[in-house]
């Protein structure tokens, strides 16, 4: 990963197709809410399928807690759409089929020469794409647990909402 990507720096903005094939700019997706950007290898990866099951449990909370999730891979929109539907995920999947954004972030996983996927990585972000924390999930245990994501989303929300103390 690029060395300048760390807590307090800004994740580079990008425009990519979503699972509907619509062009979306990452910085437009937060709309004032905390944002979790989750880079994953692909539908074929058993570690990703396991991790998605965690995110699906978090979805039950994020959907009522004003927090956004975006999953990002090199898979084309039609594959992302099918995977998303099969998972019962209700958040946005972005597609980076030529890997340009993956390379911008220096997140190409060198060990999988078949798919050239992202290194599994989770960014917790403020709405302006300021990075709160980064989780390198190359080794499965490096991925953000739901408890860690709850903590991050609580901290970001605390800073974002002027009426937190009401």
């Amino acid at each position, binding site marked *: 990963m690029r060395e300048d990507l760390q807590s307090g720096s800004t994740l580079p903005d990008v425009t990519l197709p979503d699972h509907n094939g619509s062009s979306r700019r990452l910085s437009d997706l937060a709309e*004032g809410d905390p944002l979790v950007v989750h880079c994953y290898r692909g539908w074929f990866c058993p570690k990703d399928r396991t991790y998605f099951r965690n995110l699906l449990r978090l979805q039950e909370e994020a959907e009522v807690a*004003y927090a*956004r999730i975006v999953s990002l891979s090199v898979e084309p929109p039609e594959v992302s759409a099918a995977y998303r539907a099969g998972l019962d995920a209700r958040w946005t999947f972005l597609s980076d089929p030529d890997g340009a954004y993956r390379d911008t972030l220096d997140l190409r996983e060198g060990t999988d020469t078949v798919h050239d996927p992202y290194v599994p990585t989770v960014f917790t972000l403020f709405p302006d794409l300021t990075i709160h924390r980064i989780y390198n999930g190359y080794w499965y245990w490096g991925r953000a647990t739901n408890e860690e994501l709850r903590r991050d989303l609580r901290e970001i929300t605390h800073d974002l*909402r002027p009426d937190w103390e009401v």
Partner: protein
Amino acid sequence: MGERWCWFGFVDIPPEGALASADTFTTDGEPAGLLAAWPAEQRKQSGANRLDRRVIDPEGPPMALSLAVAPRGVRVLFDDPAVVAATRAVLARRWPAFVSTLVRDAAHIAGAVTGIEADVAQRWPAWFDTDPFARLFRARRLRVGPGLFRRVTAPVGPVHQRYAGLPWPVAGFPSA
């Protein structure tokens, strides 16, 4: 916050300063009334509700609509599990051209309007069956325009809650 929603409903004549209006027709081609949208700052008209302002476009293409409206006297809370299930279904499925809930007041849903380009509905008549809000309220199947609605991108998800009483899926708190 007013620019994020507008008034929307059937009218006899478009209100002065209307954002857009267009005649509607049933799927059999029978006239079904004039739909109009007008700014939030203007006076509400009888039967009108709040709608996502982004879906209105006087240059928009012809659309097919599933217009699911709560019957007069029926007051369903936005927090009703059936409403939550409908919004979840919208997020889970392939996005049409647009969806906006209709807001009656701070707590109650008045219905929803779901649209897709008319040529798509022509090729896919069963599209009307896919509207989750049609399971809550009887839905009218209409054709409208051009000149009233436009395609918008899907909500990011997974949030199904409203932001300060705005019509879902309008997002963002006023202070953000």
